C-alpha cells in the first residue's frame, strides 16, 4: 500500500486553506517549500501558466482546489486538494433532498455536484498532464465541503480515467445516496478510502438520512471526541490533526469500539431494549437500513427511476424496495418487520405491527416521518450555533 500517513493527509487538508488564501503562486510556493518541501510542489506547467491561470489553482464561488505534483519519495504521485468556503453553512441548513447524477451515474447531493462540475474543466486540464509528469498515483484530499468534493472527484477519476485514486476525507458531510456510496466504495476499493470523523463533529451528521457516507463498508475512522451532542468545535482541522498525529490508519481504526458488524446490526434490530432519538441510535439505524435494503435487493443494483426531485419520490422508491423484500423470503421479511418496528420506536410510535400493515404507503409514511425527525435533530444540534450567530 502506498497510502499517505494520517498526519500528512490531515496536514495537506489543513494546508490547502492557507495555500489558496495566498496572493500569488509565488507566495504559495514559499508556503509549500517551508512546510511540504520533500512532499510536493507545483508542476512545471503550473509555473508557466501561473500568469494566465493554469490547472494548479481551481476556483469557483463556493470552493477552491489545488493540484500538486509529488517530489522525492512521493515522485510519480499527484495530490488534488480541496477546501470549502462559508457557503457550506447554507447547504447545511437546507434540508431538502435534491440529488443529481455523479460521474458514475449515481445520485449525489446536487449542491456538491454542481460545485464539482464548475471545477471539472480545470481538473481535466490537470489530468491531461499526468502522462508527461509520469504520475501513476493520485491522492484526493479534503476537509469538510472539501471532503465531499474530494469524494466526487475520486469517483470521477475512477469513472473517467480508469485510475483508482486514494481518497482521504476529514469531517466530510454525506455525499450521496446508497447507490453512490455503494458504487464508489466498490469501484475505488474500501482499502483506498480513508474517511476520518470525530464522534461529535456536526458536519458528518448532515445531510441527514437517506444520504449516507462513503465508504459504506470496510473501514472508516471514527475518532472519539468529548461531548454528547454534535457541534462545530470538533469539526476544526486543528482538532483532526491533533487526533490523528502519532498513529497509523490501523491504530485509528482500532479506536472505534462500537464497530457495526453485520451480525451486530441483526442483533440490534432484534433486540427489545428501548431506543430513543440519539446520535448513536441514528447511526445504528443508518447501518441497519442499508443492510436491510441490500437484503431486499438480493444482489440487484438499486436503480433510481425518474427524476429525483422530491423527498416523496425517493421515500416511495425505498418503500417499494422494502415492500418487495417482504415477499422475498421469511428471513428478509422478518428483518423488514424489525427495521420498521425500530424506526417506529425511535419516532415514539406504538410498536404493534402486523405484516399486513406493511403496505408501500405505510412504509413510505414512516420514512417521511423519520426523515423529518432526523432533520429536526440535526437542526436542534445546529441551532445553538445559528442562534448565537444571528444575534450579531
Amino acid at each position: 500500500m502506498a497510502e499517505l500517513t494520517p498526519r500528512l493527509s490531515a496536514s495537506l487538508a489543513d494546508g490547502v486553506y492557507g495555500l489558496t488564501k495566498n496572493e500569488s503562486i509565488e507566495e504559495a510556493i514559499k508556503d509549500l517549500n517551508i512546510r511540504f518541501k520533500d512532499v510536493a510542489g507545483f508542476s512545471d506547467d503550473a509555473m508557466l501558466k501561473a500568469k494566465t491561470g493554469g490547472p494548479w489553482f481551481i476556483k469557483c464561488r463556493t470552493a477552491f482546489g489545488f493540484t500538486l505534483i509529488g517530489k522525492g519519495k512521493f515522485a510519480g504521485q499527484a495530490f488534488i486538494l480541496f477546501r470549502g468556503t462559508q457557503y457550506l453553512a447554507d447547504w447545511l441548513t437546507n434540508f431538502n433532498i435534491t440529488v443529481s447524477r455523479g460521474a458514475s451515474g449515481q445520485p449525489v447531493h446536487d449542491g456538491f455536484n454542481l460545485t464539482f462540475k464548475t471545477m471539472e474543466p480545470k481538473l481535466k486540464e490537470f489530468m491531461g498532464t499526468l502522462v508527461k509528469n509520469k504520475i501513476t498515483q493520485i491522492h484526493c484530499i479534503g476537509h469538510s465541503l472539501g471532503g465531499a468534493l474530494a469524494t466526487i472527484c475520486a469517483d470521477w477519476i475512477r469513472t473517467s480515467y480508469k485510475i483508482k485514486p486514494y481518497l482521504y476525507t476529514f469531517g466530510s458531510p454525506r455525499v450521496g445516496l446508497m447507490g453512490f456510496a455503494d458504487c464508489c466504495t466498490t469501484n475505488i476499493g474500501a482499502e483506498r478510502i480513508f474517511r476520518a470523523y470525530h464522534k461529535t463533529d456536526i458536519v458528518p451528521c448532515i445531510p441527514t438520512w437517506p444520504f449516507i457516507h462513503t465508504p459504506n463498508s470496510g473501514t472508516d475512522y471514527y475518532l472519539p471526541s468529548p461531548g454528547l451532542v454534535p457541534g462545530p468545535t470538533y469539526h476544526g482541522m486543528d482538532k483532526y490533526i491533533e487526533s490523528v498525529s502519532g498513529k497509523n490508519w490501523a491504530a485509528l481504526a482500532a479506536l472505534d469500539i462500537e464497530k457495526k458488524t453485520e451480525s451486530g446490526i441483526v442483533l440490534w434490530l432484534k433486540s427489545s431494549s428501548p431506543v430513543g432519538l440519539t446520535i448513536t441510535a441514528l447511526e445504528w439505524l443508518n447501518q441497519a437500513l442499508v443492510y436491510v435494503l441490500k437484503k431486499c435487493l438480493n444482489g440487484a443494483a438499486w436503480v433510481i427511476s425518474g427524476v429525483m426531485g422530491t423527498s416523496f419520490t425517493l421515500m416511495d422508491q425505498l418503500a417499494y424496495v422494502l415492500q418487495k423484500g417482504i415477499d422475498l423470503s421469511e428471513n428478509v421479511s422478518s428483518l423488514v418487520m424489525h427495521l420498521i418496528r425500530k424506526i417506529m420506536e425511535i419516532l415514539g410510535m406504538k410498536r404493534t405491527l402486523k405484516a399486513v400493515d406493511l403496505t408501500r404507503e405505510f412504509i413510505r409514511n414512516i420514512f417521511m416521518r423519520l426523515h423529518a425527525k432526523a432533520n429536526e435533530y440535526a437542526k436542534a444540534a445546529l441551532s445553538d450555533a445559528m442562534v448565537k450567530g444571528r444575534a450579531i
Partner: protein
Amino acid sequence: MSLGDVGKVCLFSAMSGTITLDGKPVTNARLVRTGDRDGPIVDEAVTDKNGYFEFPAMYERTITKFLPQEFVASQKIVVSHNNKDYKVWTSVKRSPEENAESRGKPLVVTCELNSEEKSIVVDRVPIHSLCVWDVEPDAPENWDEL
C-alpha cells in the same frame, strides 16, 4: 469577554516595533497593513523619529465564528520609504485568537529593511518576514514520522 466581543475574530494581532535601514531607525516610513478574511481591511501607521510604530489589533465580526468553519485570513504589511516598497510581512492567519503569531506573547518586532526575507512556521502557519520577534518556531516537519 464582554457582550461586545461576541463574534469577534482577530485578523491581525496588535503589533509594535521598530523599522531600521542598515541598522539605523527609519523616520516617517509609511506602513500599510492588510488583513483579509472575507474582503480586505486596510490601515496605516507612520514611524516616529526613533523608527517606532504601533498597530492596534485588527478585529472583525462574523457569525462564522460559531459555525463549523475554518478561520483563514491573509496578512500583509508593506513599508514605503524613499519611494521604495518593502514587503515586511506575509502570512495566512489560521486562528481567530490574538497573538497567535507569537504564541500568546505581545507581538513586538524589529524589521531591518535591508535584510533577507526569512520564513518560519508558528503552529503550522508559515510567516515570511523581514522582522524578528520573540517566538519559538515549529521544528522542521519529518513526514516519515506518524
